[in-house]
């Protein structure tokens, strides 16, 4: 950028120099032309004076010849030379000025006539006719005075002087107009520089708040960084993000949002010292460069004291309530701080760090500000790395599905399986499904991931059917983003068609959380899914919002009781109240109930006693590869019950109760 700027300045200087040089040149050219005019006038005057001289020489030669002091050749030569001079004055550009003098034309005609008439008398004179010589002398002498007059007036005549004055005047005027040209050129350059400065100002500032923009902020940050590198000083970048600004914008309108931003900008300005930089680097995102005190190396604690103080002041100032368009607004903010050179010496990284710290502050909702810590970056980098690797794993089919049997607690037969995502990352090891889904949703991989899971599960289900095993239900977890952002129904329909899997074997598990509200708001998706014949199961029931309205509005067929309730059965004294309630609720609503997380045999008795028919958990099997499920299904097909022992164990306690 610097090189570009230098180039532009060099170019500008070049243009100015060329302009000045060519102006100067044209001035000198003009002066030269004026001088040439003087030369012309001089050559004219020279010719006129030569005429006078040649006339006098001719007369003198004639007089000498009369006294035998000169030769006929000399006389003839003088005569010829005078004629020649007359010819010079009569013709050509050089003497045209002379001819225009008053009386000059007549004089020249007169001279020529005299010469023509006396052509003969010269030869007579040469032959010794002294009478003719005397006459010629007489006649020529009469011409001496007018020739002298012509000569003098060619030097100082009115016309000549006027012309010279005019030339001088023209030159002066040209000089003046040239100065005008130079001044206007100079003004033009100044205006150009001003305009470009104004453009730069506009390009580097935010029009709403008048604060520097991100670009300018980064430039400034580089300058500050360079200075700190020299002085071994410190600086902090604060990234300041308004909390819930989107909400304010949505509810109060953009005009109110803009007014709030302007007020926030003013408050920020009032918080920092004059030489610190405040900028608006995004919609509701501001940034501050704060230079540390120049007291040499400081302890980290000291830094936190100084930089934290500003952040805390900003938080306080921004949090003051204000009225925007008749609405009381309570703004709040989250600030991330990264300190140079403690955290990094790279300008870009400084901003990234501050951003990371800001997100952490936002999440924690504590002080309102957070200093960057290296661990934060590690988390971010892990997620970024995972997202890249997940994309590749999806492309290369490196993910796996494990299956956990869902067992009919009465018969001990496998009723279905739940497909669970497994990913063994080459450097991070086992990655939990929760993290995979969260990474996929953050990095826009949700659609690919869900499609992959769905397709793989359906293919597997079909594979078992092809192997001749009895029909079992396939439960698949679908991440919430699929309901909101993508066309889940279309994906399911396509997958079913592609794999040939019967829709009634597919159960989509929906986790109960806030996104349920979004799903509710688009009942169309659910309707389309039901139309396909796909079942819906409400997963982890009882841990989320447990809103009965969900159950009322959405056509679930199954309810999965969260494992925490099954764990309650292991407490002493045993707490059956919630299990009881949930199961009776499900029964009332005609929902199939599946208990999750069954780990102990005794849980079975309780669950069966309360009327829960299906269950899954480590007691039966961990999630296992498809081949192991195949083995179990094979046993089942051969008439064996994989969990036959259940029947013996479950009946005993029941019988005891009945005793």
């Amino acid at each position, binding site marked *: 950028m610097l090189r570009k700027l230098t180039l532009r300045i060099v170019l500008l200087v070049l243009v100015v120099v060329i302009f000045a040089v060519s102006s100067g040149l044209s001035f000198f050219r003009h002066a030269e032309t004026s001088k*040439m005019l003087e030369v012309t006038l001089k050559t004219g005057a020279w010719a006129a004076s030569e005429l006078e001289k040649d006339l006098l020489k001719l007369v003198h030669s004639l007089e000498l010849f009369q006294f035998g002091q000169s030769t006929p050749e000399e006389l003839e030569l003088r005569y010829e030379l005078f004629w020649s001079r007359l010819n010079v004055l009569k013709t050509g550009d050089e003497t045209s000025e002379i001819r225009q003098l008053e009386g000059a034309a007549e004089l020249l005609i007169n001279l020529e006539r005299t010469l023509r008439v006396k052509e003969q008398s010269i030869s007579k004179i040469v032959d010794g006719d002294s009478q003719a010589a005397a006459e010629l002398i007489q006649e020529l002498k009469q011409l001496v005075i007018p020739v002298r007059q012509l000569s003098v007036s060619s030097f100082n005549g009115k016309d000549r002087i006027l012309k010279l004055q005019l030339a001088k005047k023209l030159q002066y005027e040209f000089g003046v107009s040239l100065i005008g040209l130079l001044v206007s050129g100079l003004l033009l350059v100044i205006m150009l520089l001003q305009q470009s400065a104004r453009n730069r100002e506009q390009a580097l500032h935010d029009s709403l708040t008048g604060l520097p923009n991100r670009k300018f902020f980064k430039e400034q940050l580089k300058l500050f960084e360079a200075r700190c590198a020299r002085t071994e000083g410190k600086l902090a970048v604060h990234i300041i993000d308004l909390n819930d600004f989107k909400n304010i914008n949505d509810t109060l309108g953009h005009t109110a949002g803009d007014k709030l931003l302007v007020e926030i900008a003013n408050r920020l300005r009032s918080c920092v010292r004059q030489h610190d930089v405040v900028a608006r680097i995004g919609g509701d995102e501001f940034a501050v460069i704060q230079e540390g005190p120049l007291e040499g190396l400081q302890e980290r604690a000291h830094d936190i004291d100084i930089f934290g103080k500003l952040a805390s002041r900003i938080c306080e100032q921004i949090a003051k309530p204000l009225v925007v368009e008749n609405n009381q607004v309570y703004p709040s903010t989250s600030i991330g701080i990264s300190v140079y050179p403690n955290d990094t010496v790279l300008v870009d990284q400084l901003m990234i760090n501050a951003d990371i710290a800001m997100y952490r502050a936002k999440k924690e909702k504590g002080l309102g500000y957070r200093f960057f810590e290296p661990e934060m970056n590690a988390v971010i980098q892990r997620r970024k790395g995972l997202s890249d690797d997940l994309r590749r794993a999806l492309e290369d089919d490196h993910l796996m599905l494990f299956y956990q049997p869902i067992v009919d607690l009465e018969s001990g037969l496998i009723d279905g399986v739940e497909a669970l995502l497994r990913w063994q990352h080459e450097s991070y090891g086992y990655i939990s499904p929760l993290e995979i889904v969260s990474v996929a949703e953050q990095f826009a991989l949700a659609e690919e991931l869900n499609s992959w899971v769905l397709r793989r599960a359906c293919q597997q289900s079909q594979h078992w059917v092809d192997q001749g095993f009895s029909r079992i239900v396939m439960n698949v977890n679908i991440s919430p983003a699929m309901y909101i952002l993508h066309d889940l129904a279309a994906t399911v329909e396509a997958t079913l068609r592609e794999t040939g899997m019967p829709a009634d074997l597919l159960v989509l598990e929906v986790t109960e959380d806030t996104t349920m509200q979004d799903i509710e708001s688009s009942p169309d998706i659910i309707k389309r899914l039901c139309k396909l014949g796909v079942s819906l199961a409400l997963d982890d029931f009882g841990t989320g919002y447990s809103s009965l309205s969900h159950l009322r509005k959405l056509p679930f067929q199954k309810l999965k009781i969260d494992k925490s309730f099954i764990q309650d059965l292991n407490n002493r004294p045993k707490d059956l109240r919630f299990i009881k309630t949930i199961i009776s609720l499900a029964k009332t609503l005609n929902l199939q109930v599946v208990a999750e997380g069954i780990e102990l045999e005794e849980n079975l008795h309780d669950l069966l006693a309360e009327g829960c028919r299906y269950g899954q958990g480590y007691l039966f099997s961990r999630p296992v590869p498809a081949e192991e499920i195949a083995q179990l299904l094979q046993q089942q097909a051969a008439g064996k019950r994989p969990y036959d022992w259940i029947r013996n164990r479950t009946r005993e306690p029941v019988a005891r109760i009945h005793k």
Partner: protein
Amino acid sequence: MFRAKTIFCIGLLFLFSTTQVLASEQLSSPSGKVILSISGKIEQHNSGDEVLLDRQMLESLPQYQFTTETPWTEGPHQYQGVLLSELLRHIGARGDTIIAYALNDYFAEINLKQIRDYPIILALKNDGKAMRVRDKGPIWIMYPLSKYPELDNSIHHASMVWQLNRLEVR
């Protein structure tokens, strides 16, 4: 302004058929009226330390012609004569400067290096006719002004000596 405007120039450079061996030949003496004498740094002589030339001697040298306008004449004229450079070589001139004197005692110093690349002639004829003194003859140093506009300025104009009768090589 005397500069010849809209000059139509036929810069015809033309070698007469009467080719003649130039150098290394002993100069003859003039038989007619001497119209040009050359003195100064020259190797050839035919009268004392000078070279004297009559019209016939000059006309026996290769002749060149071109048409040009001048500030002292009306319209284009064809001038014919001896190439100055050839004449100087012919008489073994050894100098960079010549001073040209006229019958009326006008003189001009000519820097030969400055005009080396141009066909400057000592014109003996104007439109095929020998020039009288009153017509700036018998010899007029003529520059091809129309063909080479860069020659058309006051410095060279001053060097275009008419009624030439003496050259001094320096």
